């Protein structure tokens, strides 16, 4: 049980790397699609909705498999520079995770922007504040505050989602745990150690979000 600990800790680094990179990409994707969702053009709106519907309605495992096994099948892609990225399981996993978390993030941000009372924007406009500053100084802080609890949940879901990277040969925490289980046949002990590491990470995320909620917890 103790001898497996260093190996699992090493694998935790890969899990954290996958998580942080895909969260950063996902945040930008989510913000982009949230803005598209609030567009008045019906076609753009529908497209953005379709994106989030498809990625939220299918399992993450299917998405990874399509990107890792499926896209390599297209001959044309193999000749472009994209192939450099798509032949690496690491980047395939990151693309799948980013697109997935981007879909959820776009929904979270959209509902956060929509719950801002129109009175705040009107007040800003009637005070003669330029619309850029209204966006950055009024809409964004309120949206951050509104979306923090839901986004915290999304981070935890994504942390658990990174375990699927082990299905495309990446040795992340779950991948190494499975390897140790199948060589030593000690499922319970390995589960306790690996599960403990995951729980510890969830605990930290939970508390950071709680702290941020307090910090941004002004009355709206």
């Amino acid at each position: 049980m103790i001898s497996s600990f260093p190996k699992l800790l090493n694998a935790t680094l890969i899990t954290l790397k996958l998580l942080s990179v895909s969260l950063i990409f996902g945040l930008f994707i989510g913000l982009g699609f949230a803005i598209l969702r609030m567009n008045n053009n019906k076609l753009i709106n529908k497209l953005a909705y379709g994106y989030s519907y498809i990625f939220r309605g299918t399992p993450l495992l299917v998405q990874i498999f399509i990107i890792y096994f499926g896209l390599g099948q297209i001959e044309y892609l193999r000749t472009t520079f994209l192939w450099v990225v798509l032949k690496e399981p690491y980047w395939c996993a990151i693309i799948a995770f980013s697109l997935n978390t981007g879909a959820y993030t776009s929904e979270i941000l959209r509902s956060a922007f929509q719950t801002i009372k129109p009175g705040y924007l009107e007040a800003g406009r009637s005070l003669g504040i330029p619309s850029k500053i209204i966006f950055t100084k009024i809409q964004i802080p309120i949206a951050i505050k509104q979306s923090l609890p839901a986004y915290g949940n999304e981070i935890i879901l994504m942390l658990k989602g990174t375990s699927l990277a082990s299905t495309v040969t990446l040795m992340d925490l779950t991948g190494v745990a499975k390897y140790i289980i199948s060589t030593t046949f000690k499922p319970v002990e390995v589960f306790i150690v690996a599960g403990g590491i995951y729980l510890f990470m969830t605990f930290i995320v939970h508390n950071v979000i709680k702290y941020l909620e307090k910090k941004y917890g002004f009355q709206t």
Partner: protein
Amino acid sequence: MELLYFGDKGWGDELFFATLMTIAVSITAMIIGFIFAALFTPLKLSNNKILNSIGNAYTTVIRGVPELLVIYLFFFGGSGAIMFVASIFGYNDYIEINAFLTGSFSIGIISGAYSTEVFRGALQSIDKGQFEAAKVLGFNKYVYFFKIILPQMLRLAIPNLSNVWQITLKDTSLISVTGLVEIMRQSYIAAGSTRDPLFFYSFAAVLYLMLTFLSMQLLNRLETKYSKGY
């Protein structure tokens, strides 16, 4: 399109039965989850500190640990645990548990943790006066729970339970690692033997989308039924 023909030529019938298997596993897991929720919700609401922390430990651990890890625990540890219990009763042969049971049990435990949270939230948001009024009017325990508390709880719980159903349905794709032939596993087999992974995995995505879409329609109908009068 030939790949989807029914019969020996295509994979249509295999994928059809795989879809039925996914539905069967999801429903079984959901029911097992309800049993777990029925056990753990009272614990989470109990005033006894020990019982309370048992309930909290269940939901925190299961919701904080990846589903795949839980599935590996039961897949590799399940038959060992049952053989250990059997050996106490003097049965020493190798026992292999059915993949369907391990799969639905492990997904059921996960789904149960989410259901527990939903039921706890719903019970806590019922007006206290309802409990008191029911007690004061002297209803017996059966009427008290099944006719007064449960209908009100269901109204509040159903929208969140449909989320739990979606999570459960999508989690069943993970049991493919144990070899149970559901949509994901069947697509994997088909993709391997036809060398056409893009088509089969995309088709799997379409099947899952169809399942989530159809079940959402059904659950929305249920939701309107139970929120009658509000």
